[in-house]
């Protein structure tokens, strides 16, 4: 019987030689908690400076933490790798069943090295690892078919995760993602391409172990309190009821919802694409990650007629969230929910990151509008706002790497605009396409300085939303401090690994209590210190790989369209960056 406090085992898989072994790394977990904290150490150990992200030497690392399978909403897994999109720190989080499955397989982390000679999928369980031939799965047009086949072939139903890539990952598109449980993703930053480069099609992982607690009675009491908070209070209401699309209307009303490649900050289709409208017309099923009573996964049922075959219909189940609505609907000015859902569906099947895909298509559409590119570049496609059918064809070409233009588009807007022009409206930060918030200074500063250049790094947009609601104006120095503190604390949450939606419940005091029933003493102040250290270590990796705050580019477009705080200036953003940098360096010295 394993103690919950004994998180220590790391599984190493060598794809080149088809070998695997485990190592006990108890000290590592003790010091770095798990998740992000352990993953960044393992990445430093495994990934040499200057590694080509698509070379066999680029490792794939998965980590879970002490709270997975022990407390509710500790449902996430952290993946780390060097990103083919940004050529720097790659970090991605996903839910579904994987966080619980990895822990229940008796593991704290997984390190995947090398490259398989032929397509392979891995079956990981308490009994070890099996290498299975995936040649027949390679090149399949839909990632969900791959999931279905593996589901039928392999054991562990109910307690397993099936992570897989689509064609985009096989073809090394820089922002290809990894899909797990059909609807959850290791998105952003191109983990799917790293899988593809290793000829790794999928990983099935399952387990059903039990963990003992140092203080069993205390465990039940802390659990009970958390469970009540998640289910009986209003803390999780927004995720529970409408899910993340509840943001569509408020952001639109606040002039914060980017549309048409941020030529506007309002979207005319917002009503039709709102969480309210989608649930009324399309919501077909609700689902949850393992160990999450909140169930934020909203799945639309879309009935589509066959154009050539009368009396034939198909019903597609398509999950929707705020971010894909931003990128694949608002940014492309697709005002028809049916059109958005069909585009979304194809993006899922091909295994592309929805956000980067939408931003890339929006950039290309504006380029066409302005005559920066023409049908010669797009090989005949006329990209027009709202024309989802053409966009579906375009994503097909991106995932299939069909022609020079689509190949470049598949490397992100920073890259493609460096070749074709249009960089003033190429919306990317640190090489990662911009998320769907235009709320003010904290938002964009957050994207700029966030270690992954993701909205989830420090939720600057939430800081702005709060400030805007209170009508408060704050200086860049203060904004930088808020962003920095949030990002530090989030390192702890993503080391446990709890869902960020649970951040309101998992306060430093509560996390400290969760540890104490396992017999681990970590005061709230200790936790915060660890968070700062983890962030610093992530930045060490970034600096080593050539990142510098001075080199950060601010897309001109961002400073041309007013936010609720008025027009942003590059000057104020740079001032914020400077303050963030100071805080980070100060923290390095432990002062």
């Amino acid at each position, binding site marked *: *019987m394993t103690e*919950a406090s004994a998180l220590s085992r790391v599984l190493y898989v060598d794809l080149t030689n088809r070998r695997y072994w485990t190592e006990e790394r108890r000290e590592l977990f003790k010091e770095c908690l798990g998740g992000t904290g352990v993953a960044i150490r393992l990445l430093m150990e495994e990934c040499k400076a200057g590694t080509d992200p698509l070379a066999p030497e680029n490792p794939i690392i998965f980590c879970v933490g002490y709270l997975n*399978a*022990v*407390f*509710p909403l500790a449902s996430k897994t952290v993946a780390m790798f060097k990103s083919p999109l940004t050529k720097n720190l790659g970090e991605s989080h996903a839910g579904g069943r994987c966080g*619980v499955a990895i*822990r*229940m397989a008796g593991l704290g982390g997984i390190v995947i090295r090398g490259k398989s000679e032929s397509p392979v999928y891995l079956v990981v369980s*308490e009994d070890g690892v099996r290498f299975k031939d995936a040649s027949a799965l390679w090149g399949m047009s839909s990632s*969900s078919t791959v*999931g*279905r086949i593996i*589901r039928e072939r392999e054991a562990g*139903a*109910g*307690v397993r995760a099936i992570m897989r890539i689509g064609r985009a990952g096989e073809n090394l598109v820089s922002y290809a993602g990894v899909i797990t*449980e*059909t*609807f959850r993703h290791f998105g952003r930053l191109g983990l799917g391409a790293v899988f593809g480069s290793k000829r790794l099609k999928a990983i099935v992982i399952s387990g*059903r*172990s*039990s*963990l*003992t*607690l140092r203080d*069993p*009675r205390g*465990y*039940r009491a802390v*659990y009970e309190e958390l*469970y009540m908070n998640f*289910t009986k209070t209003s803390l999780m209401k927004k995720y529970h009821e409408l899910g993340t699309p509840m943001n569509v209307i408020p952001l639109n009303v606040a002039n914060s919802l980017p549309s048409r490649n941020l030529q506007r900050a309002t979207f005319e289709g917002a009503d039709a694409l709102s969480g309210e409208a989608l649930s009324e017309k399309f919501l077909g*099923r*609700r*689902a*949850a*990650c*393992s*160990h*999450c*009573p909140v*169930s934020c*996964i909203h*799945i639309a049922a879309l009935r589509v007629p066959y154009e050539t075959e009368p009396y034939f219909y198909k019903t597609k*189940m398509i999950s929707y969230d705020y971010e894909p609505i931003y990128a694949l609907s608002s940014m492309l000015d697709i005002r028809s929910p049916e059109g958005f859902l069909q585009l979304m569906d194809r993006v899922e099947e091909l295994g592309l990151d929805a956000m980067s895909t939408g931003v890339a298509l929006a950039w290309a559409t504006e380029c066409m509008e302005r005559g920066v590119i023409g049908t010669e570049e797009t090989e005949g496609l006329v990209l027009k706002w709202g024309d989802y059918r053409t966009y579906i064809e375009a994503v097909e070409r991106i995932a299939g790497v069909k022609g020079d233009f689509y190949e470049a588009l598949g490397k992100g807007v920073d890259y493609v605009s460096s070749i074709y022009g249009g960089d003033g409206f190429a919306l990317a930060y640190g090489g990662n396409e911009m998320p769907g918030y235009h709320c003010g200074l904290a938002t964009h500063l957050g994207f700029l300085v966030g270690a992954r250049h993701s909205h989830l790094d420090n939720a600057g947009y939430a800081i702005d939303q709060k400030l805007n609601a209170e009508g408060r104006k704050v200086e860049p120095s203060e904004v930088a401090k808020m962003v920095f503190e949030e990002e530090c604390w989030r390192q702890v949450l993503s080391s446990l690994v709890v869902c960020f939606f649970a951040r309101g419940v998992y306060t430093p005091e509560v996390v400290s209590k969760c540890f104490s029933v396992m017999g681990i003493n970590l005061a709230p102040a200790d936790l915060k210190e660890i968070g700062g250290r983890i962030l610093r270590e992530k930045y060490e990796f970034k600096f080593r790989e050539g990142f510098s705050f001075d080199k950060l580019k601010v897309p001109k477009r961002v400073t041309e369209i007013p936010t609720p705080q008025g027009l942003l200036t590059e000057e104020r953003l740079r001032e914020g960056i400077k303050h963030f940098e100071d805080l980070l360096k100060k923290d390095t010295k432990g002062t």
Partner: protein
Amino acid sequence: MVKRVSVVDVDLCVGCQSCMFACNRRFAEAGLARTAIFVQSTGGFEHGFAVKVCRACREPPCVKVCPTGALTKREGGGVRLDYRKCISCGNCVEGCTIGAIFWDKVLDKPTVCTYCGYCVSYCPYGVIKLEEVEGA
């Protein structure tokens, strides 16, 4: 009063598995090794979920295949397991028509629902309830 867990409406189930974790917590342990209720998708999340739990049969097939009499009928429906008599043969797992007996790898014994109802209070959507066995 003989009780059992019944599935009220499986279409309300979101697959959160809170019930499974609850059942395991009866032993004040975290994880899933000892759970007597099981939730899995019926072919991917898009198709919804199945909830497997002992329905307290009047004529339990598991009792009929237990070679040592470790599983006995509970009066009014359902079964009881006497661990001392159980020889870990696993016949009952095979014998349960609805697949509601599971294997506890830690103890190397079957896990059989005890009709305590602990899981019920952790289902956020009222999918399962503790009810009296009809006619018992």
